[in-house]
C-alpha cells in the first residue's frame, strides 16, 4: 500500500492502540493534519501546544498508556518544551511528534526552523529526527517501545515536512532493534535474599513507596508486603495512591510537607525499604541525617537511581512488582508491636490539622471535595500550596487518581492535564485543584474543555497570592512580599465568557452545594473559592534541614 508519511504515521498510531492525539496545526505538519482530516484517530485541538503536551501527559498518567501530542515546527515545537520536561521529570510516557522544515532546508535557519531534537536532548528519554519516509514506521515503533518500557519517559519524533508529504510503500513494523536498550525487569535473586534477611531482623522497618509503584502497577504486592511484615508505608508525592491512604499502615506523604508521623518514622527506622522512588531532596531533606540509623533496601528499575542520592545497603535493579513478589516468597510474618504502637502515638499526637475559625479554609475545601466525591474522583493539581493541600487532605485510595507535576513543579500543568484525564475517563469526576496564579498559565484551555464537552471542575483556591512563594517570603524573608501579590481577573466571568460555568464561594457553608452543583453540571466549571489569604502549608521542613525537624 502506498501512503504518505502523514498517513503512515496515523497507521502506526493505530497499530499502537492510540485513540487520541492532542495537538495544534501549522505549516510543517500540514501533511499530517491532512491525514487526520478523514482518519480514525480522534484529535483534540488545544489552544496552546504546552497544553497539548500536558493533556497527553494527564492522559498517560490516568491510564498508564502512552499519551500523544503533535505540534508544528519552530514555535509549535518549542511550546511543547515545558510539557516534555514535566513528563521527563515524572517519568511519564508522552510521545511528541513535531513537524520540521523540509530536509533540504535543515540547518539553514529556514522559516520556523528550531533544532528541537537538540533542544529536547536533555529532557527526553530519547528523540529522533526522521530523514527518510522509509524509516518512519520503524522510528515510531521504537519511540513507543522506548517511552513505555523500563523507566517510562517522553520521546520526541521530529518529522520534516517533505518526509510527512512523501509517499512510500507501507509495511507494518513488528520488531524493534535497539541493541543498546535492555531494561532489566527481573531482580537478582541473591539481592532478594539479602533484602529478606535484613527485613527478618529489622525491628523498626518503614516502606517508602514512590511513583515507580504506580508505573509498575504494584499496589497489590505492596499492600501484601506491608501487611506481611507489618511495616508502615509512607508515600512520596508521586507515590500517592500507590498505597491506599486509608489503610491502617499508611503514614501519608513524607518529606518537606509530609506528615510528622511519616518523617518521624523514617528518622527513627532501622530499615528503610525504598520502592520505585528516586529519593530526591524534597523527600530526604538534609541528606546526612536522612534515616540515620537505617539500613537501606532500594528497588528501582533504573540502575542509575540506586546510590545516586542515598547510600544503599541492598540495591535491587528491577520492576517493583516482580521484585516485591520475589521478596514476599522469602518472608514471614514479622510483627513489631512496640514500633507500631509508637507510630500510633505519633499519629494521635501530630495529626494533619488546620484551624477551623469560621473562615473559608483551603484544607476544608479539599476535605469537602473528598467527601462529596466519596474519595473516588481523579484529582489533578496545579503547583504551590494548592498542590500540597490536595496531597495532604484528599485521601487517595487508588493508583492514578492523583495527577500532579512533582519533579518539575510546573504551574499550568493541572488544567490541561485534567482535560487529558477527562478525555481518558469520560465517565469519571475530574477536578483540577488550582491556585489563582497557576490557573492563569493555561486558562485559555477553557475553550478546549468547552468545545469538546469535557466537564472538568476547577477548584481555584484563590488567595490573591503566589501563595507558596509568599509563604517562603513570610518564613524566611521577613515578610517582604516581593512581587507575589496578584491582581486577578473575575474568574467567574472568565469562565462564563468561554461558555463554561462559574461559581464564586466565600463562606464554608456554601462549599458543599457549590461542589454538588459543579459535579452535576454538564459543563466545565470554575469554582472561585476566596480563601484566607495568608494560610500556610504546614507542617514543613525548612530547606536544608533534617526531615525530623519540622515547623508548624
Amino acid at each position, binding site marked *: 500500500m502506498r501512503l504518505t508519511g502523514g498517513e503512515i504515521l496515523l497507521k502506526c498510531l493505530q497499530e499502537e492502540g492510540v485513540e487520541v492525539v492532542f495537538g495544534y496545526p501549522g505549516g510543517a505538519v500540514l501533511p499530517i493534519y491532512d491525514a487526520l482530516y478523514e482518519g480514525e484517530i480522534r484529535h483534540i485541538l488545544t489552544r496552546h501546544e504546552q497544553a497539548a503536551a500536558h493533556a497527553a501527559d494527564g492522559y498517560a498518567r490516568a491510564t498508564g498508556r502512552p499519551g500523544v501530542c503533535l505540534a508544528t515546527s519552530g514555535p509549535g515545537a518549542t511550546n511543547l518544551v515545558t510539557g516534555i520536561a514535566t513528563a521527563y521529570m515524572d517519568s511519564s510516557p508522552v510521545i511528541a511528534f513535531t513537524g520540521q522544515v523540509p530536509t533540504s532546508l535543515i540547518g539553514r535557519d529556514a522559516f520556523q526552523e528550531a533544532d528541537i531534537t537538540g533542544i529536547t536532548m536533555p529532557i527526553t528519554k530519547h528523540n529522533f529526527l526522521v530523514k527518510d519516509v522509509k524509516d518512519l514506521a520503524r522510528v515510531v515503533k521504537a519511540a513507543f517501545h522506548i517511552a513505555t518500557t523500563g523507566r517510562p519517559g517522553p520521546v520526541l519524533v521530529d518529522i520534516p515536512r517533505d518526509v510527512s508529504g512523501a509517499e512510500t510503500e507501507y509495511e507494518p513494523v513488528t520488531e524493534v532493534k*535497539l*541493541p*543498546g536498550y535492555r531494561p532489566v525487569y527481573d531482580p537478582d535473586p541473591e539481592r532478594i535474599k539479602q533484602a529478606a534477611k535484613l527485613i527478618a531482623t529489622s525491628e523498626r522497618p518503614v516502606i517508602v513507596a514512590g511513583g515507580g509503584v504506580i508505573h509498575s502497577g504494584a499496589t497489590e504486592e505492596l499492600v501484601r508486603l506491608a501487611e506481611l511484615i507489618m511495616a508502615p508505608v509512607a508515600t512520596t508525592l508521586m507515590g500517592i495512591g500507590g498505597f491506599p491512604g486509608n489503610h491502617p499502615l499508611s503514614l501519608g506523604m513524607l518529606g518537606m510537607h509530609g506528615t510528622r508521623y511519616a518523617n518521624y518514622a523514617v528518622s527513627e527506622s532501622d530499615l528503610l525499604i525504598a520502592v520505585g522512588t528516586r529519593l530526591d531532596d524534597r523527600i530526604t531533606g538534609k541528606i546526612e541525617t536522612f534515616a540515620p540509623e537505617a539500613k537501606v533496601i532500594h528497588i528501582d528499575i533504573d*540502575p*542509575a537511581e540506586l546510590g*545516586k542520592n542515598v547510600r544503599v545497603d541492598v540495591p535491587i535493579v528491577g520492576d517493583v512488582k516482580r521484585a516485591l513478589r520475589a521478596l514476599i516468597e522469602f518472608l514471614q510474618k514479622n510483627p513489631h508491636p512496640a514500633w507500631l504502637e509508637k507510630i500510633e502515638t505519633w499519629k494521635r499526637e501530630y495529626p494533619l490539622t488546620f484551624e477551623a475559625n469560621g473562615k473559608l479554609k483551603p484544607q476544608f475545601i479539599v476535605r469537602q471535595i473528598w467527601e462529596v466525591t466519596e474519595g473516588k474522583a481523579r484529582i489533578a493539581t496545579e503547583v504551590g500550596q494548592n498542590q500540597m493541600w490536595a496531597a495532604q487532605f484528599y485521601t487517595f485510595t487508588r493508583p492514578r487518581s492523583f495527577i500532579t507535576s512533582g519533579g518539575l513543579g510546573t504551574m499550568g500543568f493541572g488544567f490541561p492535564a485534567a482535560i487529558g484525564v477527562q478525555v481518558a475517563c469520560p465517565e469519571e469526576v475530574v477536578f483540577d485543584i488550582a491556585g489563582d496564579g497557576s490557573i492563569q498559565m493555561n486558562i485559555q484551555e477553557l475553550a478546549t474543555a468547552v468545545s469538546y464537552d469535557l466537564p472538568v471542575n476547577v477548584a481555584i483556591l484563590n488567595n490573591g497570592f503566589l501563595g507558596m512563594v509568599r509563604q517562603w517570603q513570610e518564613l524566611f524573608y521577613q515578610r517582604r512580599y516581593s512581587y507575589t501579590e496578584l491582581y486577578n481577573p473575575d474568574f467567574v466571568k472568565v469562565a462564563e465568557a468561554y461558555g463554561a460555568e462559574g461559581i464564586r464561594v466565600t463562606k464554608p457553608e456554601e462549599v458543599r452545594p457549590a461542589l454538588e452543583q459543579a459535579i452535576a453540571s454538564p459543563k466545565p466549571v470554575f469554582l472561585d473559592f476566596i480563601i484566607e489569604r495568608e494560610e500556610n502549608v504546614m507542617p514543613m521542613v525548612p530547606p536544608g534541614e533534617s526531615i525530623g525537624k519540622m515547623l508548624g
Partner: protein
Amino acid sequence: MRHTLSVLVENHPGVLARVANLFRRRGYNIESLAVGSTENPALSRMTIVVEGDDRVIEQVTRQLDKLIEVIKVENFTKEEHVNRELALIKVQADPPRRGEVIQIVDIFRAHIVDVSPETLIVEVTGDEGKVAAMIEALRPFGIKEMVRTGKLALLRGPRALTAE
C-alpha cells in the same frame, strides 16, 4: 582519581552530542575523549578519560548506559589494558640546534614527519607519561604549535568489547 572508560555506541549522527551533553549537564569532567570507527561499521567506540571518585564514576557509567544508543560501557582502569596517545608537535629547529632536537626525538623513539628551514614536526605516540615527557623535552626549543589526540585504549589479551 582518573578513569578510562571504553564506550561502544551506535554509529549514528548525534551520538557524540548526546554523550557530550550528558557530561556537561551532570557536571562530570571529561579529561579527554576520542571517537572513531571500529571493526563493525555499525558501531563507533569512544575512549573517555574522566576524573572522579568511585561514586561519581559509577554514576557516569550508569548514566551513559542509559543512553539508548550506548551499547556497552566498560571501565578499563582496573583491568590490564594498552593505552596510547598521539601528539604532533611543531618545534622550532633552526640549523644550529636542529641536531639536538633530532637526538631527543630519537631517544623517545618518536618520528619527524615534516621538515622546513626553521621547524620540524615531531610525531610521538605512547602512553600519557611518554607524550608529556616528549613535550617537556622539546619545550626549551620553542613549541610553535601542537595537537594531541585523547587516549585510546584496548584490553590486553583475547577479550574484546563487542555488541554481544
